[in-house]
C-alpha cells in the first residue's frame, strides 16, 4: 500500500454569450445634481461582482472616479431589459451596454463643457478624476460635478445616456450544425497534482495551477476570485459531488450539506494562477469573460493526474474511492 503522486493537465476554451436566442442587454445612465452618475439596469448581480465591474466600466467611460458611480440593479420598473446573468455574458454584454450609455452621457457633458470653455468638443478630454480639460491646456478645465449641476439648474438639460448591446440571434443549420453561437473565446490550461492512497482509494489534490487568458481584466482581484473558486468547484465535481450517488438509480439521494459531499478547508489544495490579457475585439475595453469556465479544466486535469499517479484511467464522475480501488483491482 502506498501514496502515489502524479500530475495531469488539461487545456480548454470557453465561449462568451448566449445569442442562439438573441442576446440583448440595455442600460441607462444619468447624472445627479451633485455630479454623481446613476447606472440603471435590470441585470442582477449573483455575488460575483457585477455591480463592481459595471461601476468600473461606467466610471472609466465617463471620466469620473469609481466612487461617483451608483449602480442600481435588478428592478424591472426602472431598469431596461436584460437577458439575464448567465452564459459568462454579463461583463461583456452589460458592460458594452453600460459603456454605450456612458458614452452618450459623456457626450452631453462634453457639449456643455465645449460651450463653457469655448472649445471644440473634439479638443476636450477627461482626466479620470472628474475633470474635463482642453487637450494640452490643463489650465482650461471644468469639474464634471459643476457641469452636471449647471446642466440641471441653469441650462435645463439632461446629462443622460441610453445604451444597448445585442448580438443578433444565430440560427443553427439542423443538418450541418453551422452556427455563430458566441462572441469570443477565453482559454485556460490547468496542471493538477494529486496523491492517491492505494489502501483507501482516496485522492488528495495537492495543487491546481492554471494559466488563464480572459481578455481585459476589469478587476483582477475578482478574476482571481473566480479562478480560485472555480478550481475548488472543479475539484469538487471531479471527486465529490452528485445528487445521485448511484446514478442512474435515484436511491440514496442527499438532502443537505451533511450528506452532499464537498471538499472542506482541509482538502483545499494550493491554488495558483497566472492571467494573460489579450483583449477581445468586441468586449468593453477588450473583455472576454471568466464567469463559468474556471471549474472546467481542473476536472480532467485531476482525472489525468490520477492516471499518471496510479495507472487507473477514470471515465466516470465523480471519482469515488470505490472507483479507484476497483480500478486498482482490475490492474492487479
Amino acid at each position, binding site marked *: 500500500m502506498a501514496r502515489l503522486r502524479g500530475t495531469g*493537465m*488539461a*487545456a*480548454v*476554451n*470557453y*465561449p462568451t454569450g448566449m445569442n442562439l*436566442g438573441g442576446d440583448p442587454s440595455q442600460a441607462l445612465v444619468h447624472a445627479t445634481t451633485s455630479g454623481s452618475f446613476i447606472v440603471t439596469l*435590470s441585470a*442582477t448581480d*449573483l*455575488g460575483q461582482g457585477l*455591480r463592481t465591474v459595471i*461601476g*468600473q*466600466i461606467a*466610471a*472609466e467611460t465617463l471620466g469620473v472616479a469609481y466612487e461617483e458611480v451608483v449602480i442600481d440593479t435588478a*428592478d*424591472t420598473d426602472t*431598469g431596461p431589459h*436584460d*437577458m*439575464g*446573468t*448567465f*452564459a459568462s455574458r454579463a461583463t461583456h454584454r452589460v458592460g458594452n451596454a453600460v459603456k454605450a450609455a456612458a458614452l452618450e452621457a459623456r457626450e452631453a457633458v462634453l457639449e456643455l463643457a465645449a460651450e463653457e470653455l469655448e472649445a471644440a468638443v473634439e479638443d476636450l478630454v477627461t482626466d479620470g478624476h472628474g475633470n474635463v480639460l482642453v487637450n494640452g491646456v490643463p489650465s482650461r478645465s471644468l469639474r464634471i460635478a459643476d457641469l452636471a449641476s449647471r446642466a440641471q439648474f441653469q441650462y435645463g438639460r439632461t446629462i443622460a445616456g441610453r445604451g444597448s448591446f445585442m448580438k443578433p440571434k444565430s440560427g*443553427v443549420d*439542423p443538418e450541418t*450544425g*453551422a452556427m455563430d*453561437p458566441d462572441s*469570443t*473565446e477565453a*482559454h485556460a*490550461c490547468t*496542471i493538477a497534482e494529486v496523491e492517491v492512497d492505494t489502501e483507501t482509494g482516496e485522492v488528495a489534490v495537492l495543487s491546481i*495551477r492554471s*494559466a488563464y487568458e480572459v*481578455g481585459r481584466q*476589469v478587476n483582477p482581484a*475578482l478574476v482571481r476570485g473566480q479562478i480560485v473558486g472555480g478550481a475548488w468547484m472543479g475539484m469538487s*465535481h471531479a471527486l465529490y*459531488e*452528485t445528487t445521485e450517488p448511484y*446514478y*442512474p438509480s435515484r436511491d440514496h439521494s442527499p*438532502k443537505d*450539506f451533511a450528506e452532499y459531499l464537498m471538499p472542506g478547508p482541509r482538502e483545499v489544495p494550493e491554488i495558483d494562477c*497566472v492571467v*494573460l490579457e489579450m483583449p477581445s475585439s468586441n468586449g468593453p475595453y477588450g473583455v472576454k469573460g471568466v464567469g*463559468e469556465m474556471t*471549474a*472546467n479544466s481542473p*476536472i*480532467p*486535469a485531476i482525472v*489525468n493526474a490520477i492516471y499518471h499517479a496510479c495507472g487507473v484511467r477514470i471515465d*466516470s*464522475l465523480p471519482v469515488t474511492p470505490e472507483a479507484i480501488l476497483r480500478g486498482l483491482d482490475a490492474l492487479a
Partner: protein
Amino acid sequence: MTTELHVVGQSVARSDGVGSVTGRSLFTADRSFPGMLHLKMVRSPVHHALLKGVDLSEAEKVRGFVRALTHADVPHNVYTILGLIGVEPEEEFVLAVDRVRYKGEPIVAILAETEAAAMEAVSKVRLDLEELPAVFDVEEALQPGAPVVTHWGNNTFMFEGHNCRRVRYGDVEQGFAEADHIVEGVYSTSPIEQAPLETTGCIALPEANGRYTVYTNTQALYFSLDNTSIILQVPGNRLHFIGGMVGGGFGGKVDVIVEPLATLGAMKTNRPVRYVYSRSEEMQVSSTRSAWKIRVKDGVTSDGRIIARKVTSYADSGAYSRQTPYALTKHAANAAGPYAIPNVWIDAYCVYTNRTPTSAMRGFGVTMASFAIEVQMDRIAERVGVDPWTIRFLNAYRNGDIKPHRKPAEDATLIETMQAAAVLVGHDLPEAFKAMTSDPRPTQEGGR
C-alpha cells in the same frame, strides 16, 4: 478620450463585500410583510404515475390552512421556459393534472398562515396514484418500448426535425479510414447540484394599485417576469420584479418555478405569499446539472494529428427539458474541443427520463465536453507515444481555422495559454512549441 485606463484594470473593493461579510446585505428571504402567507408544495412521492385523485379534506382542517392551488387555478398550466426564444413544444406542467413524471413533481400548492401549518397541511393531502413503469437510463429511454416520459410521445427533444443536435464537418469516415490509430472512450457523469448558499425563492405582494411586486433571487428578472406573465395570463405591466442581492446562482436560478405560483397565491388571497425552497428541495427537486454520457471516437495519424472525431452525447434532461436543449446546442459547438480537426461528426441528444428535470449550470453543456475531450487527449497521447503537452500543441486551433460549426476561430489563444502554464509549473517546452503562436496559419496550410 485618453487611451490610458484609470479604473478598468484596478482591483477596487467589491461594492457588496462589507455588507455581505458583516451580515447586513438584505437577501430575498430576509424580507417579511404583514399578513404574509407561506407556500409549501405537495409533491409526487413516486417517479412515474397516473394521478387519479387528490383529497384535500384533511388538509383543509389544519389550523392555519388558508387555501390550496391546483392545476385548475393556473391559467396557462403547460409551458416551456425557452418558449420566450421560440423553443417548442410547451411541455412542463406548472401543477400536475393527471400524471406525474418525476419524484418531487409539484401537484398542489398549500397556502397557510405559518410555515409549520403549511407543512402539516401538505402532509395531510391524500393522493390517489397508480404507479407506471419508469425509465432512468438515457440509452434505455431511446429503446423501442421504453416508458414514454413526455405528454407528446417522444423521449428525445426534437431539434428542427432531428432527434439530436447535429454537427457535420468534412468526412469523418474517410478520416477514420486514413488514420493510423482509432482511439475510443466513453465518458459519463452524474447529476450535480448548483449548491448556492441561498436557496431559490421569492415573495409576491399584492399592491394597492392592482399590481404585484415580486422580490426574487432569479438570475434573470425579465425572463422570470415574462414567463410569469404567460403562465398567469396577466399583462407584464401588472408585474414588478425586484432582485438585488443573490446568494449564488451557478445556473440554479434560471428556471421560473417559484414566481408564478407565489404570484398566483397573492392574486387568489390578496395577501403576500412567500415561496422559498428548503435545502432538501434545492437539492432534490430544483434542477441540477444534467448527467452526461459521451462517446468519443478519434482517428489519429502516427505523428499525433487528429484527423477525425466522432462524438455521440446524451444529456439526461429528466422529465422536462427546461434549458437543456440549449445546453445540447452549446455542447455541439464545443464538443470537438479547442483543436483543429478536419473531419467532425457530432450527435447530441437531449433525453427525457423519470428524474428531476435538469437545466442550466455553470459551464452549460461545455464542462462535461471538456472532461471527456481532455481525458481523451491523454488517451491519444499515450497511444501515439507522445506527452500530454505535445498532443495538445500539435492539434491546437489557431485564428482563422474553421471550427466544426463553420465559424472561423477568432480570439484563439490556446497556444499562448499553454505556454504560460508551462512557465508557471516549470515545464520546459521544446523550442518548436515555445515559438508557436495562434496567428493564422500560412495559406498553404489554411485548409485544415
